């Protein structure tokens, strides 16, 4: 009964979640600082600013979908951690394919919306290339982070549902900003 009370009381829920939120916020502020250091470039080329939330969101989503699929396969006893595992390889290929399909469209969408609203300083080709390169790198990083985190949860006997998804989503958010920053540095 005590457990029930804490699960459905305001103070119980806040006590459980707040420390996790503080840790996740500290991680996210790291990526905020990276954004802050290239604020000048972002303000100069607003179509890159348009890419920021969608890149962060897509990176986190690619990671969290993969993490959810790994967790389920893991609970069902279908996952083994080897490079020859069909389920591991198949999901990894799907993640890269999803990124390669969607990121160029996201880049084109960002360019189009910014052109309609405020005019763009960058050519379509550059924005699509920035999105595609960032997206492909992020897909590979999402696979690495998700595999390592799921394996760590398995080794430490933690439930992957509780641990892996928040860790992977927030780490991929941060990587989203870092990779976008690196790609813009090289391509723009």
């Amino acid at each position: 009964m005590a457990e029930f009370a804490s699960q459905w009381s305001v103070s119980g829920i806040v006590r459980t979640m707040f420390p996790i939120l503080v840790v996740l916020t500290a991680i996210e502020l790291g990526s905020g600082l990276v954004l802050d250091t290239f604020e000048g470039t972002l303000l100069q080329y607003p179509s890159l600013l348009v890419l920021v939330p969608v890149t962060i969101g897509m990176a986190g989503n690619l990671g969290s979908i993969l993490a959810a699929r790994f967790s389920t396969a893991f609970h069902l006893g279908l996952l083994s951690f080897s490079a020859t595992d069909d389920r591991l390889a198949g999901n990894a290929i799907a993640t890269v394919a999803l990124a390669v399909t969607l990121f160029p469209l996201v880049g084109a969408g960002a360019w189009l919306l910014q052109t309609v609203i405020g005019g763009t300083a960058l050519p379509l080709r550059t924005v699509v290339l920035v999105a595609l390169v960032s997206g492909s790198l992020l897909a590979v990083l999402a696979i690495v982070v998700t595999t390592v985190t799921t394996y760590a949860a398995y080794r430490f006997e933690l439930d992957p549902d509780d641990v892996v998804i928040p860790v992977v989503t927030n780490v991929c958010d941060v990587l989203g900003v870092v990779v976008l920053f690196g790609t813009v540095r090289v391509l723009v």
Partner: protein
Amino acid sequence: MTVREVALEAYRESLPVLALSAVGGLFAGVVLGGMDAELQDVAGLLVLVPALLATRGNVYGSLGARLGSALHQGLIDPQFSFDDDRINAAVAAALANGVLISGVAAVMAVALLALVGRPSAPLTTLVAIALIAGFVSGLLLTIAVVSVVFVGYRRGLNPDTLAGPVVTTTGDVVGIATLLGATRLVLALGGWLSG
């Protein structure tokens, strides 16, 4: 299943959700792209953007998951009323977490900027913006999550698969739009108080 079958199934199942959240993210980006004046006026505001967006997902995604599990277990009914203590507690806790962590994020951002020697707007300005944006976005996202989970469940849909995409699509747009609104309000109030 072969590698090819696994990959195809994962691709097909994930594409619609990802495409939907990409559209939401692009609209959030358009709002952020139009915020250039505010971003220049309030140094350090951009530092808060990833943290505030992630908070919306973490807090209200968790509210959706909690309500979804409780519906499956028969602990709550999908009825909109203020009589159910469990629903009230879950909503109040989500709002408390969402508003508190927004304020804490602003304090941590100012400390971090001071630590690395980068310019930052006054603590009170960033905290006021974060708290107002946290409260308003919390109200809007609570309404969105509770509505979608309850209405979806009544129509026989699985709330577990609904809450995630709803939070990721609406969270970014609502998160950035309320940040813009809160920044304009705080700047206007600041101008009025000092002028």
